[in-house]
């Protein structure tokens, strides 16, 4: 009986631990790459440079193609606020200057979490950001932003 209780307790702890971990994952933003990407991780500063069009390359020199979530996505707003350090109006203003001077184009909008995940899973040089809760083995996590 005591053994059984112990087992139950362990089980409960594991579940609690798991769901705790899941909660963390829920709240977190994940920067994802293709599983074929040899990088083990990427810094927030490098991600910001890529998303501002200041770099076309991963830190190891391979070409990167980054994608955005749809315009009013809350994940997108969170990503730009936490990783790039800009609000939606600042980002719009920043890109307006580059777009209309023909100096650059922002990352393409491909949709929401699932669409970004699918896109990155099918593009070896892809880079995207998704809500941590949609992560699976089709993509590689390069950075977790709490």
């Amino acid at each position, binding site marked *: 009986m005591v053994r059984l209780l112990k087992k139950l307790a362990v089980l409960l702890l594991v579940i609690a631990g798991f769901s705790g971990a899941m909660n963390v994952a829920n709240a977190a933003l994940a920067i994802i790459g293709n599983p074929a990407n040899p990088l083990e991780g990427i810094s927030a500063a490098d991600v910001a440079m890529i998303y501002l069009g200041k770099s076309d390359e991963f830190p190891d020199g391979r*070409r990167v193609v980054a994608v955005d979530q749809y315009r009013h996505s809350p994940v997108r707003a969170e990503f730009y606020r936490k990783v790039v350090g*800009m609000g939606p109006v600042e980002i719009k203003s920043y890109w*307006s200057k580059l777009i*209309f001077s*023909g100096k650059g184009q922002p990352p393409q909008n491909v949709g929401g979490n699932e669409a970004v995940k699918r896109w990155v899973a099918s593009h070896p040089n892809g880079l995207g950001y998704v809500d941590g809760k949609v992560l699976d083995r089709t993509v590689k996590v390069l950075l977790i932003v709490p």
Partner: protein
Amino acid sequence: MKKWLVSALGVLSILSAGQVFGVEGVRVNGFLTAGATYADTAPCLGNTPCTVAPGRGLVSQDGNIANKVGFTNDSRFGLQISAKINSKVDLTGQLLSRARDNNDYAMKANWAFVTYHLTDPLAIRAGKLKLTTFLISDYIEVGYAYPWIRPPQEVYYSNPISTMNGVDMLYRFNLGRFSLLLQPYYGASSGGQALVPQEVVGGVPQIQPNPAPPPYYNVVPSPAGTIAYTSFTADSMYGINVSGGTNAFTLRAGYLKTLVSAPAFNVTNKTATFSSVGGSMDWMNVVLYAEYFQRRIEQGANAAFPDQKGWYTTLGYRIGKFLPNVTFAKLEDNNNPPNGGNPFTTGYGTPLEQSSVTGGIRYELGTGADIKFEAEDVKPLNGTRGLLIGPLPAGKSHVMIYSVALDLVF
């Protein structure tokens, strides 16, 4: 204006209804400014000294701002299409329709070029390119991208060349948070029309060639209020822009040299140079812009294009969605060669000097739209008419120009 708006709305609705360009690799972006202006004092027109403002007359030197409510000065609409041909090559084209290009509201190709991304930091562009004389020249038509309704005229009116056919190179370095952009270019501009001082365009023929330079020719003034444009070409145009900064700060310097020809003024391949320095900042809610330029044109050609220098400083402070701002600007004669007291018979430049103080407020309408209000106090200086269409009537020393504009980008 109406026709212009209808065509703009037409293109917009086609775009939004059809999603014709939803293909991956093809992007469509657009911008629109709808603006109204009113000036409270009309300068004198005609030859006789005037003491009473003629009323409801033209005010700005190109006649687009008047002593009545007008919509032509700032209203415009642009559409940009860019297509990724492959990972190295992009095509970009921009169409522009301006209400000020009256009679014809058709969209014109503002520029179109191909970009070749050689390596990550280096891209080469060729075609019809926007000429980057000043800080915001690249996107001067995109009102949403700057705090004013119109960039300070004391600086931005000084270069009539807005595009060139040629090639440029964008070379970008990143050093941590700091990035540096080098942009050398080479090209030519033809078919351009430049507004020339009314002080030099009188008489038929307007300019009589003079055998021995200097003076190159005799010029005859036209009555105040004359709006005259001349065709010109700018050949062997080369220059470099250097800009650097972080996301919040930008410092920029530019130099441009070209050979100007204006047949109506008997000007052939005269050297013109533009030098400018400036910077901008958008940090901790403080918005700051400042620029200074000098324009120098070889003796003889500066009758049509006088040597000038100018500067402006803008200071703004963001309060939520509001950006109240104030701009001080000045345009001065840049030591045109001595003219023996009569600028009109020696072929030397006509001094046009003015200063202005502008109070403005910008309000963000969500993301990608704003509305702006401005009150600009323009004061012609040193007995010149400045950038106004004529001298101010006796007893008046300045003009107030009120403007409102709505800007969109999509």
